């Protein structure tokens, strides 16, 4: 197939923003971020196999401000992708297509993803 001049499908810069479109593209972006998170976990295990001194250095990086920022970001991205994914699965079963319902479920996904991220860190750090 040769190049054609048809516009590409999701016209992000052209359509007016709605909760539905915002969540749709964020679902994709967070999915790609989750892939990077998985690659980070891969390196985490790889560094662990390289011995103690390397791992101690890795821990230092992970526990720095930027490291924590990235880890918390990954946690949010995962929380969001899972919750938004559940919303997609409910759609696949044929429910929740009314505009009002879809808007409400969208807002619920955004808020719950933030709450879930906080719960993850409080639990993981043994604070609750």
């Amino acid at each position, binding site marked *: *197939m*040769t190049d054609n001049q048809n516009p*590409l499908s*999701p016209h992000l810069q052209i359509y007016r923003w709605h909760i539905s479109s915002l969540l749709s593209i964020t679902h994709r972006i967070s999915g790609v971020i989750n892939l990077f998170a998985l690659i980070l976990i*891969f390196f985490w*295990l790889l560094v*662990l196999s390289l011995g103690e001194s390397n*791992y101690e250095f890795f821990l230092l990086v992970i526990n720095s401000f930027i490291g924590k920022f990235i*880890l918390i970001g990954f946690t949010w991205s995962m929380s969001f992708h899972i919750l938004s994914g559940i919303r997609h699965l409910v759609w696949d079963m044929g429910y929740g297509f009314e505009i009002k319902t879809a808007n409400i479920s969208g807002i619920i996904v955004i808020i719950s993803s933030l709450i879930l991220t906080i719960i*993850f860190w409080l639990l993981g750090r043994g604070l609750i």
Partner: protein
Amino acid sequence: MNETRKWALHRISAIILTPLFFWVYFSLILLSTKNYQEAIYFFENPLFAILTIILFFIGFFHAKISLSEIFEDYIQNQKIKDVANILVLILCIIIPTIILILLVYKI
């Protein structure tokens, strides 16, 4: 693989990944406060190794299907799309395989 089957496998892998991701993130946040010895002890647990291997294989399988879908939407040139798909496929085979070797032959 036909599209319907791809669609179904994408959903099934998503459902399997959900609990695995809850588990792995909780573990990682916990591990970030532990030292080397404790981390090694963690990974020597066979259950941890098995779950990690499943997470990587199914996670990268899910990513492969999703990325092909994204490439389909945003890449116009068929050649570039094919190359992108092949690169992702290689990545999605190599990384889980290294994880498998690392965890099966002990770190």
